[in-house]
């Protein structure tokens, strides 16, 4: 026991034991919380402590695996299969979740983290509600912890450990793997809180505005993570896959996009419920849907059903078990919903032209978009199973159906924040937007005439993008009385606005920026595929590209064919670019590393192709304003974070009038 190796060895078993213990505690919490939720404060104190304990135990289990990866303990099967002693530290750590077992463990870690957070911040919740929420949350821990322990044990040992690990897939040896899955998982799993709250409301039969006020920050938090996770994944694929695509409508992408859409709808419907005590049943329904889609996003893609190439799901029993768990959880939730939803008191009346009316339209379009993406993703599968006909549903279909649903949503979006609750005047809102609409139309005409209309829908897309981006400012302008009072006064008013107002404006503006980026790159991207020899020069969109020389450079665990290029921008100024083609020594696998140069919001994307008759194939793209796509997503996420800091929405903040925390009067 004294030797270091022995201690290492023991930590794995310790981790295994910790996970078993966490599941056992979760089982107790689930039974206690869901069956005896009326027991009040004393039970909720115990459950809160149990939630924190679950988190500590799963963290121990997770760290045990991380440690085995870091010290390259290849007696752990997972490390032997997925790690390598020469790998940089960050990829050793990220390699923990670059595989089925480890990613499940990460998923559970985040699940219990959220449970512990609810326990920590939930002391002001009614005890009955807290009992139910923590009980439901623990039930999820039992289901997925059990799945991990019984079918996907990350702690399995090898009797005779290899001297060296099999290494991680080279494509995954990227900082993207270190960031993307944890963000995405935090988003997926965060929605489990909404799910647990929905279960609690259905079981207790009580749901009110306080419920919505409670659920909204958690929804927002998860939505922020999911937004960042999807954006990060998109950018990762953009630079790593080597042909500059940023969204493919791939089933696995759709699987992450659907919870995002549903979560966005949930954010807006919870707002109606919080302010107007309406849309209760719909909000509950959306909470269940959103988490169900998150579960689909995580697990359906690896059940082996959706696509056959997912190596993680090679074991059919595993797929069957996970499908059973999904069916029981989601089916159970909807059964409960069907039985109990009618018992919830429906409240609130609404006029069609009002803030709540606009938010309901938002929900209509977002929910339909979720439906469209879901049908498009699953249809080939169902058709194949029922009729035996195989068809493909790819990007053209999704672009058409999704685009057609988003266009009207973007059109009405700027009106929403300008309409007062209860009853509104559409004409008044229209008058306030007229100036901004003029700006959007002017910019659209300007850009279209400068860029040329390569795609007939491009001007419409631009108009929608500018309209949403600038329309988002309308409420800020209105509230600051910009132009009607001295500028200094307006700035003061702007600074003093509640942060939720800012967050709404920025969030919508971020969406507009993303739309602009998408339209711009779709309509005005230029591409050049050509052969080039060292010493030769070619040109694209005013940029001249010179192939200086070709080198073969050995990397740490790969050999690289490297091209050295010089790019000269139209305004002068040279940039060196070095795209590579790598062959990884261990696996013999080739990868391409594109070289990207950023000019403002636009990017120049250079890829070194395969050799062709003594020359080199070069692919060059100029992607105008492509960065707006991800900047828009960052702005949206930032806006969400800003709204979380608003005092009235902050988790656990006392619900009373905010004290003006501003400077005393002059």
């Amino acid at each position: 026991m004294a030797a270091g190796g022995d201690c290492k060895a023991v930590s794995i078993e310790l981790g295994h034991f910790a996970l078993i213990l966490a599941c056992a505690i979760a089982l107790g919490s689930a039974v206690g919380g869901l069956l005896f939720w009326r027991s009040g404060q004393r039970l909720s104190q115990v459950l809160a402590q149990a939630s924190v304990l679950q988190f500590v135990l799963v963290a121990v289990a997770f760290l045990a695996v991380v440690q085995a990866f870091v010290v390259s303990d290849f007696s752990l099967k997972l490390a032997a299969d997925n790690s390598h002693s020469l790998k940089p530290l960050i990829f050793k750590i990220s390699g923990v979740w670059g595989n089925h077992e480890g990613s499940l463990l990460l998923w559970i870690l985040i699940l219990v983290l959220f449970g512990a957070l609810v326990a920590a911040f939930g002391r002001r919740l009614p005890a009955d509600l807290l009992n139910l929420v923590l009980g439901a949350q623990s039930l999820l821990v039992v289901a997925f912890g059990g799945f991990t322990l019984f079918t996907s044990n990350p702690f399995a040992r090898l009797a005779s450990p290899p001297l060296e690990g099999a290494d991680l897939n080279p494509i995954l040896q990227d900082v993207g793997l270190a960031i993307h899955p944890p963000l995405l998982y935090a988003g997926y799993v965060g929605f489990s809180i909404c799910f647990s709250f929905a279960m609690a409301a259905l079981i207790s039969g009580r749901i009110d505005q306080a419920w919505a006020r409670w659920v909204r920050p958690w929804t927002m938090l998860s939505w922020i993570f999911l937004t960042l996770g999807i954006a990060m994944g998109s950018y990762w694929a953009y630079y790593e896959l080597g042909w500059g695509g940023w969204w493919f409508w791939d089933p696995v992408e759709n699987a992450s996009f659907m919870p995002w859409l549903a979560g966005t709808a949930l954010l807006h419907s919870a707002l109606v419920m919080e302010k107007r005590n309406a849309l209760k049943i719909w909000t509950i329904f959306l909470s269940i849907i959103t988490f169900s889609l998150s579960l689909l996003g995580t697990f359906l893609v690896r059940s082996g059903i959706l696509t056959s190439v997912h190596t993680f799901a090679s074991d059919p029993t595993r797929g069957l078990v996970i499908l059973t768990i999904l069916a029981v959880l989601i089916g159970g939730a909807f059964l409960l919903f069907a039985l109990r939803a009618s018992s919830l008191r429906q409240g609130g009346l609404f006029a069609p032209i009002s803030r709540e009316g606009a938010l309901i339209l938002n929900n209509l379009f977002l929910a339909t978009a979720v439906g469209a993406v879901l049908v498009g993703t699953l249809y080939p599968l169902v058709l194949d199973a029922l009729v035996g006909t195989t068809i493909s549903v790819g990007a053209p279909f999704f672009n058409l159906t999704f685009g057609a649903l988003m266009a009207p949503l973007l059109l009405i979006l700027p009106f929403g924040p300008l309409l007062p609750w209860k009853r509104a005047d559409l004409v008044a809102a229209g008058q306030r937007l007229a100036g901004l609409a003029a700006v959007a139309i002017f910019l659209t005409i300007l850009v279209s005439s400068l860029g040329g209309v390569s795609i007939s829908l491009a001007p419409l897309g631009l108009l929608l993008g500018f309209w949403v981006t600038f329309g988002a400012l309308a409420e800020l302008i209105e509230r600051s009385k910009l132009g009607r009072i001295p500028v200094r006064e307006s700035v003061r008013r702007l600074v003093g606005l509640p942060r939720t107002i800012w967050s709404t404006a920025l969030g919508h503006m971020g969406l507009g920026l993303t739309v602009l980026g998408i339209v711009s790159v779709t309509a005005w991207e230029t591409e050049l595929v050509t052969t080039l020899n060292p010493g030769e020069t070619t040109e694209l969109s005013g940029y001249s590209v010179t192939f200086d020389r070709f080198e073969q450079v050995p990397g740490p665990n790969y050999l690289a064919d490297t091209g050295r290029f010089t790019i000269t921008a139209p305004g002068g100024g040279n940039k060196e670019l070095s795209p590579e083609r790598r062959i990884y020594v261990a696996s013999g696998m080739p990868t391409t590393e594109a070289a990207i140069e950023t000019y403002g919001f636009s990017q120049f994307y250079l890829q070194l192709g395969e050799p062709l008759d003594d020359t080199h194939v070069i692919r060059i793209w100029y992607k105008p304003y492509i960065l707006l796509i991800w900047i828009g997503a960052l702005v949206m996420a930032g806006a969400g974070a800003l709204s979380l800091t608003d005092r009235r929405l902050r988790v656990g903040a006392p619900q009373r009038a905010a004290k003006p925390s501003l400077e005393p009067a002059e």
Partner: protein
Amino acid sequence: MTRLFSLLALVFCLAVPALAVSPDEMLDNPVLEQRARDISSGLRCLVCQNQSIDDSDADLARDLRILVRERLVAGDTNAEVEQYLVDRYGEYVLLNPRLNNHTFILWIAAPALLLLGLSGLILAVRKTPFRGREPALTEDEKRVLVELSEADEGAARKG
């Protein structure tokens, strides 16, 4: 993690290191070549996961790209080229499914959902009894009003 799966799927396409559309495949006639690119981006690489043959690195995709160009040079229209490939590989090859008996539900789903939702909303609005049942302001609304006016006062005082 989803992107991870895409990347893993891509590994299968990378097994053969030939990359997407290459200069030696391209046609000299720029109009025909552009048509070939347009058609290619709507055809599925049959051995990849959800990639068009225009993007794919697989050998089969390369064969299909060359085939598309051969048909175009032979004088086929875009529709005829697509039909030619459908005859050989089935409708699976089309990324944008055709509207027929098999895909009717697929194409009708989104508009139907939207109409269903809209009509539900219209019904709900019609059924809503005329206002006046509720007190003018609920307690919560009064509180919000107080908060807002205080926030405004704060802003005004600051100014």
